[in-house]
């Protein structure tokens, strides 16, 4: 599978999330040769981990499905999963890229029957659910994973577990001798669609994410709301597995704060507004959402969503950045402490569950890689003519919502196509 043919008329897209898939498909559908690489075993990225996405509150499986169909029907697109870039040299129209391919230990024979998963017993934290539950050591990353092929966790290689999995496979798809491979390719342009990661909430000391079990992050809440998630769609408190009905959301948890992330992550306000609708969906008038905010930044057309949520009597808005969170030891309830800006009243209010609307930061620290690219002060890739044939797509360039990320990816694709056309002499 590693005999990838690439030339200086090929576009390399790094990252198989919604932005990377979009950028790769737009270029491939314009007739360019594209290689899409993804470091995880499946495409999908962060969007595949959402329960619903705004503004239309549809399920990401829908958007994923459309993209997967486009991928399957396109002959110009090559996909390499479990692959990372280790170095980039060269210049516009002629980059030499070194890729590192990690073994999946499962080959193309796999029919995703799941016999290997039934055979093994070892379990690891489930990355797809942000570690909220466990998965087997032979696993399918998630229901809509692409490729639909199981993975053997490298941590069981060389153990009896691995042999059990191999023995259980009815189609001889497990190859435990697969090794890490290195691959050098030449490409004309590179699109970095490396995306974002949630800000590490442990760093926000006063909010006690590391010591109060019922303080969780917005991405974890998203998994909880998903019927295919770790709690089967129930909003359960981590401390006692009781249903949480009175829930507080803390905005700007990490964002807009010079101690943590300087930038506004832009989508967290809307994401919280969306998550209040999950509470209504589960409990009707029984549930309560309380949003602590500095100011609500529901950008452009999401103002509608804001107005709609504002009219919901079960949703309360409190204009205040919470100063600290403590815990009521007898009930396990987190208590929010602070001062309300509208009236300057002091509050200490307990809730069943607290959700930190954590900010977005770049998932890749480019300063630590031998890659020459211009970054802004938050570590996102800056648009700079000095980057030559390298472009950012989606959240590699800034904190964006899905809509904007996809638009941005299309634009980056067009920029990469222009580079390739120049190389081919089709464009001056």
């Amino acid at each position: 599978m590693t005999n990838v043919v690439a030339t200086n008329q090929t576009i390399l897209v790094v990252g198989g999330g919604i932005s990377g898939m979009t950028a790769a498909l737009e270029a491939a559908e314009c007739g360019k040769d594209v290689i899409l690489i993804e470091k995880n075993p499946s495409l999908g990225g962060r969007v595949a981990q959402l329960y619903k996405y705004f503004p239309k509150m549809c399920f990401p499986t829908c958007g994923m499905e459309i993209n997967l169909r486009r991928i399957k029907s396109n002959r110009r697109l090559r996909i390499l999963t479990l692959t990372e870039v280790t170095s980039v040299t060269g210049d516009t129209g002629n980059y030499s890229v070194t890729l590192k391919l990690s073994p999946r230990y499962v080959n193309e024979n796999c029919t995703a029957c799941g016999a290997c998963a039934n055979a093994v017993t070892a379990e690891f934290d489930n990355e797809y659910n942000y570690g909220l539950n466990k998965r087997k050591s032979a696993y399918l990353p998630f229901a809509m994973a692409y490729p639909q092929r199981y993975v053997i966790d490298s941590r069981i290689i060389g153990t009896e577990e691995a042999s059990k999995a191999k023995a259980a496979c009815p189609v001889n798809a497990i190859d435990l001798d697969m090794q890490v491979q290195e691959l050098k390719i030449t490409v004309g342009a590179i699109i970095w669609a490396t995306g974002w990661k949630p800000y590490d909430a442990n760093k926000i000391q006063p909010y006690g994410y590391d010591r109060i079990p019922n303080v969780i992050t917005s991405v974890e809440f998203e998994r909880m709301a998903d019927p295919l998630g770790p709690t089967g769609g129930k909003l359960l408190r981590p401390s006692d597995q009781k249903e949480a009905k009175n829930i507080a959301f803390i905005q700007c948890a990490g964002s807009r704060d010079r101690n943590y992330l300087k930038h506004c992550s832009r989508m967290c306000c809307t994401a919280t507004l969306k998550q209040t609708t999950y509470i209504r969906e589960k409990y009707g008038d029984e549930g309560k959402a309380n949003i602590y905010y500095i100011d609500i930044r529901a950008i452009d057309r999401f103002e509608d969503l804001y107005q709609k949520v504002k009219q919901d009597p079960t949703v309360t808005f409190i204009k205040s950045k919470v100063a600290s969170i403590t815990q009521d030891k007898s009930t396990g309830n987190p208590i929010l402490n602070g001062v309300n800006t509208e009236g300057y009243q002091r509050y200490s209010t307990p809730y069943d569950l607290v959700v930190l609307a954590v900010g977005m930061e770049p998932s890749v620290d480019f300063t630590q890689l031998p890659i020459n690219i211009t970054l802004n002060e938050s570590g996102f890739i800056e648009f700079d003519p000095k980057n030559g044939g390298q472009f950012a797509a989606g959240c590699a360039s800034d904190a964006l919502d899905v809509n904007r990320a996809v638009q941005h990816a299309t634009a980056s694709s067009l920029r990469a196509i222009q580079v390739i056309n120049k190389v081919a002499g089709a464009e001056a």
Partner: protein
Amino acid sequence: MSQAVEKYRNTFLREVEANVEEGQWVKMCMQCGVCSGSCPLGPHWEHPPQEIFMMIRANKREEVLTSSSMWFCTSCYNCIARCPRELPITHIMHGLAHYAQRQGLAPKELPTAKFAKRFWDNLLKKGRVNELQLGLQLYFMNGLAEGIKTSLKMQKVGLGMLKTKRMDPMEALGGHGCKDIKGLKAALNKAKQIEETKAAKALERLQSKS
């Protein structure tokens, strides 16, 4: 100028920017409230820092400068550590208190103000704080009876310090100073001059604008 415009004039903000240490930061406050929620003395002051900043911007000169709020600050620096915009809140609070004092608007009978005044006067005498004198002054700050009561209460501590030579009773008579008290006074005068020139210039700018 119409009344409506007058109402929204931020002359006090400009005055604070010109005269109060770190006053130029006041306009940067985004009213999130973390400072107020983080202040260990928060429940005791009338106006938390966040509100003081808003009052400055709302031109409430009298209310701010006569307030006892900023005199409650104990310099724990919790607010500075947590402020998402890195405002030097502790310094601004002390700056405001100092400015109110200079303007003669600070409320009388504030223990922290009294302490600050005695500390400064004591320091100015010899360029070094005479802890014995300052301590005694504070004991007797609120009258003879309370002074004797406090002294008796602290008797054991005092004797212990004497025994271990942590306190020299002769210091009460005058004590020792720093090497170059003249130089120190000259430096302080120069600082005062610089401050006054800065304030005068700022006032000039303010008047030329309005």
